[in-house]
Structure formats: C-alpha cells, structure tokens
C-alpha cells in the first residue's frame, strides 16, 4: 500500500510541467551562485573587510551551496503545491479514494518529498559543482579541500527535502496555495533576514538567530558564518533544528488532514 502510494506521489509531480521548470530554476541557481561565489572567494584577500570568513572547506561549501537558499525556496514551493494543488483542483478526493487511510496517504507524501528534495539536490549540485569546481581549479584553488565538503554536498540533498516538508505542512495548514506561497516565501526571503538582522544587534537575540531556519540551513552545509556576532550551530545541531521545523509543520498538517472532512 505504502509503496504504491509513494509511486503515485512521484507520478503526480512528473506528470505536470512544474517539475522541469523547477529543475531548470534550481540548476541555474546552483550554477550561477557557484560562479559568483567562486569568483568572490578566489579574488578576495583573506581577512579583508566584507569578505566571507572561514576555513578552506567552508569556502568550498559556500561555492557549492551558494544557490541553496534559492533552491530550498523552490523545493518548499513544491511542498506547498504538492498539497495545495490537490485542494485547489480537488484531486485530494481521488487521492484519498485510492489511499483512504489518510496517515498512509500523508506519509507517502512525506517520503516522496524527501526523495524529490534529494532529486533536486542532485540537479543543483550538478550545476554548482561543475561550475564551481572548474573555476576554483582554474584559479589554483583545491576544489575539494577536505572530506567535510562531501558531507556538505550530501547534506544539501537532505536540506532540500526538509524544506519541501516545511512547505507541505504550511500548505496543509493554510490550505489556499497562493496564501501559503506568499506567506512562506515572504517569511523565507523578507521576514527571516530582517528578523535575524534585527536580533543580531541585541545580546539575547543573537542567541536566537542560529535557530532560525535559514541559519540552521547554513549551519548544516557549514557555510562561513553570516555575522561575526552570531555563533553558528554545528552541522548536526543545525540538521536537528531544521528537522524539528519540518517535523512540527508536517505533524500539525497530518493531524489536520486526519481530522478534516474532504468535500
């Protein structure tokens, strides 16, 4: 039952035009940001004002995952749409007729979104590693200065899946996909950066900032710290924080699906 439901969820994504539009976006974001950061990293004098501070591995991580903040907003969008379109076009009815146990239907969505996140993660990495590594190498930098770079690449796949789940939960809770997209993209690109900037000026606030979703994401992929006053979480702590956000939103969403009438 579960295997079939998961297969059905994958088919839902790959039978509309959304998936390749997203694939192109994620690929280009990965490639373009890798090019940008590769030039910044290789051109800057270490220690100069306004340049990213970090280890060689962190610099490589920044190159390869520079497009991640765009990519995760796109997989979050896929997460919102994976449920929002079902509500919008009432295909939730046929979904639940085929898989009437709602927990099964929802867990199938969760598993498929983690898979879809990894799939887009690979697309993003194809773009960013191809472009980033060749620029780094051509400037005489080691493209893979440490083994932890590979850990970062692997974890970036998880990051995109977790953001898709954040989107899924938000999509269920807000039900209207346009509202959910506006709220979530606004939160990710406007509210959160402003909040973390504001919070970093106050002492208690700078303790909160590392736990915000985007800061946790940077920590997972071990990019250089954004702000000298804010301490970045270790990669595994960042992963736990982001898993926490995804789990809370997904579980709240599943409870709502379990209880609500579909009409």
């Amino acid at each position, binding site marked *: 039952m579960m295997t*079939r439901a998961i297969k*059905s969820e994958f088919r839902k994504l790959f*039978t509309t035009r959304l998936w390749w539009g997203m694939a192109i976006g994620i690929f280009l974001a990965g490639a373009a940001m890798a090019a940008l950061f590769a030039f910044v990293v290789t051109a800057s004098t270490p220690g100069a004002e306004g340049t990213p501070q970090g280890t060689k591995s962190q610099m490589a991580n920044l190159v390869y995952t520079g497009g991640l903040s765009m990519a995760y907003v796109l997989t979050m969008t896929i997460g919102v749409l994976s449920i929002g379109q079902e509500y919008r076009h009432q295909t939730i009815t*046929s979904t639940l007729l*085929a898989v*009437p146990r709602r927990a099964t239907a929802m867990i199938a969505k969760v598993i498929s979104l983690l898979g879809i996140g990894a799939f887009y993660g690979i697309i993003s990495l194809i773009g960013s590693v191809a472009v980033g590594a060749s620029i780094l190498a051509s400037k005489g930098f080691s493209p893979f200065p440490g083994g932890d770079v590979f850990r970062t690449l692997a974890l970036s796949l998880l990051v995109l899946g977790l953001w898709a789940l954040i989107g899924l939960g938000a999509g269920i809770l807000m039900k209207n996909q346009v509202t959910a997209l506006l709220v979530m993209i606004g939160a990710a690109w406007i509210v959160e950066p402003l909040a973390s900037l504001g919070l970093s000026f106050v002492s208690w606030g700078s303790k909160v900032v590392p736990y915000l979703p985007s800061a946790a994401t940077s920590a997972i992929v071990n990019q250089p710290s954004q702000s000298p006053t804010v301490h970045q979480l270790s990669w595994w702590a960042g992963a736990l924080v982001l898993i926490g956000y995804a789990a809370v939103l997904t579980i709240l969403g599943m409870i709502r699906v379990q209880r609500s*009438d*579909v009409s």
Partner: protein
Amino acid sequence: MTATGRPIQIDGLTKSFGSFVAVDQLTCTMSPGRITGFLGPNGAGKTTTLRMLLGLVRPTAGTALIGGERYDQLANPLQTVGAALEATSFHPGRTGRDHLRVLAAASGVSDQRVDELLELVGIPAAARKRAGGYSMGMRQRLGLAAALLGDPGVLVLDEPANGLDPEGIRWLRGFLRHLSSEGRTIVVSSHMLSEVQQTVDDVVIINNGRMIRQGTIAELHGAPRTRVRTSDSAALQEALRSADLAATAGPDGALVVETDDHVRIGDLALGARLPIYELVAVQTDLETTFFELTEGTNRNLEGGDPR
C-alpha cells in the same frame, strides 16, 4: 453473473455541520446486480451521504458499510469500489491519461488497463491532452474511467449524466445496464428522477437529509391501471364491479380500472353490450410523483425555519 458485487448498507447515518443536519438518520440498502437511483433535490444530502460512504466525510453518527466494511478498511479500495464524485476534479495541467496513471500507481493497476479503459469510454486520443481543455462530457467519461480502473464490484456515480449529450446518456444507460448484469452494485445519484427512471431498478429518495421513500421503480409506478372510455360509464363501472374490478370515474367521463388486463375489460364491456372508445394503460408520471414526494419542503429554498 460474477459474484463481485457487495451490498451497501447505510444505517442511521447522520452528519451535522454545526446546527445544520445535512443527513439525518438515513438507513437504506443498495444491492448487487441492481442499479439504485439515489435521488433527491439539490441540497438534499446526496453528496454528503456518498462522501461519508467513501470515507471522505466523517459521520456524526451511524455507519455506511460496503460488504460489511468501512471504506477505509478495504484492503484494495479501488478494486472494490469505484466512485466518480464530481466531474471537475482533475489537475488542468495533467493529461487525462496521466490522471488515471496516478490513480493506477496508487492501486497497483497497470498502464495497459488505463489505455483499455480510455478505449472503453471513448476518449483514447483526447486523454493525451491536458485536462484543462476538456468538455463536461469528456470529464464525465474520464471520471467514469477512473471509477472503473480497478474493475470494482461496486460503482458509485454522482450525477453521471450531467453534461452528457443525448447520445452519451444513451451510451451510459446501456453501459450501466451491462455492468449491472455482471452482478455489480451500482448507485447513481441524480436530482432528476426522469433522468434515471429508465436506467434504475431501485430508488432511494431523500429530501432534507431524510429518507422519503425506498423501493423498486415498479413500486413507485404503483399498481397497474387502465383507462377506458365508453358510452355509459356508470353501466361499465357496474359490470366491472361485478367482476371484482375496481374502477373510478374521472372528470372527463373516462374510467380508471385497477388492472392491466385489457382483454378482460374488453370482454366485460362486450358482455354488457357497451362500445369501447378508448382502452389504454395509464402511465404514472414519475416526475410528478417525485415532485409530490419532495416539493414544498426544500430547506435550501426558504429563508425561514429549515424544517
């Protein structure tokens, strides 16, 4: 006859939305090998009832079982029950064929079966275009194909004739007849009795969420009657009465006799030396019956007390 059909048993089924009782203690049965018309005016609670049967809406009280099981307990739901609820629930950017393939994947049905069904409902080519451009008739046919995907023994179709042209309705009627003859349980909801009266064997009529009438279509027609016209109605009435045939005089002078035995009426008239000017079976106007059963009480039309 295959033994695939399971009975649908609805018992005390109730759904309240706040203080509004959409379905009120509904009890009825729908049997294998028969087409049941589930009838009522718009807003009578038909769709809510079907959605409770299919596990989409949680009943406030009562049960709706398919062969003794709740829909969400079925091991292979689409292989047991096929449902077409509303003809508009397709993603406009996905082709009709892919819509079926998504459901096929969820229920372990092959893509080959998908293509067979598209042939069967007559839209094999159109189903390769995006569903956004489909006509109502095509949506109905695609919905029917989705319902038949798992070759289920129970079919639940909500207003399946909506948007079909007369040829399509004729095709649907023959198709449902064929499926029913294989022993399947078929439920067809409609707000118009005339739309389904030639298709259905049984009727369940509800209004304001409550059962109004359940029985065969023949029972709804009532006892057979014959209208007869002669030169002396009173004399013929007397002759019929002496043969234990009840007859009532209509305002136009014709008699309505409680039988469909035209030979007997003719013989009795001949015995009484009365001429026959007209001898014809009386057709019950089921639509009138339906309106009489459901009229004047529709809670959705009046602003006042819904009951």
